[in-house]
């Protein structure tokens, strides 16, 4: 039921809403998370995302299936870009649809926590000074632990 895509192209929020809603009138709540290329210091030239083709798709499918098991979802979208992006560009989109708002919120947070800690993507920032792989954040591993049951 989930729609998963790993792509270099940008995504369109309205088109993805249309895809997940379809003719479904049971949906009352849709939550989205959009991650964008952040440039806190104004020095970022570009951000390059490397990934592990094959494993990425497989892992995103697993995460989506797990979310659908845990919450009464009526739809679930995960789109993650790779390649070289500019400040402000979209990186990732997660959409969850449900009859219930809390289920939609919880599932979206869950998907992002797993994606951040488990999906095989790596970010490299390029500034005038050169390229630099982004360090993983310990808080992402911590965030994941709250879903242990």
């Amino acid at each position, binding site marked *: 039921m989930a729609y998963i895509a790993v792509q270099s192209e940008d995504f369109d929020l309205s088109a993805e809403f249309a895809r997940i809603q379809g003719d479904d009138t049971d949906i009352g709540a849709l939550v989205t998370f959009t991650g964008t290329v952040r440039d806190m210091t104004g020095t970022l030239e570009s951000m390059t995302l*490397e*990934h*592990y083709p094959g494993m990425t798709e*497989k892992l995103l499918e697993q995460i989506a299936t797990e979310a659908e098991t845990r919450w009464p979802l009526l739809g679930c979208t995960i789109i993650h870009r790779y390649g070289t992006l500019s400040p402000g560009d979209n990186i990732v989109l997660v959409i969850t649809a449900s009859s219930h708002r809390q289920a939609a919120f919880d599932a979206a947070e869950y998907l992002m926590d797993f*994606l951040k*800690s*488990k999906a*095989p993507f*790596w970010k490299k920032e390029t500034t005038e000074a050169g390229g630099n792989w982004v360090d993983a954040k310990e808080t992402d591993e911590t965030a994941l632990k709250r879903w242990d049951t």
Partner: protein
Amino acid sequence: MAQLMYFSKVREQIGIGDETIDLPHTIATVEDLVAHLRGLGDGYNSALADMTFIRVAINQNHVGIDHAVTNADEIAFFPPVTGG
């Protein structure tokens, strides 16, 4: 033949993205393989020096360092992920 894959900083340090090797019979686990690879050159040695900073996937599933490896496996080494 085992298929080895390297990503991100590991790929840059080793200098290649993937390679196939015939695992010696002495290699039973990821840990054995890491010790073997570190003998192949400075790039390998520095990339895999501290395995607390390296993640391993076998056949596209995250595994621990004590996981078994065979010649039929796709084995990937990479830093902690930073997508999203």
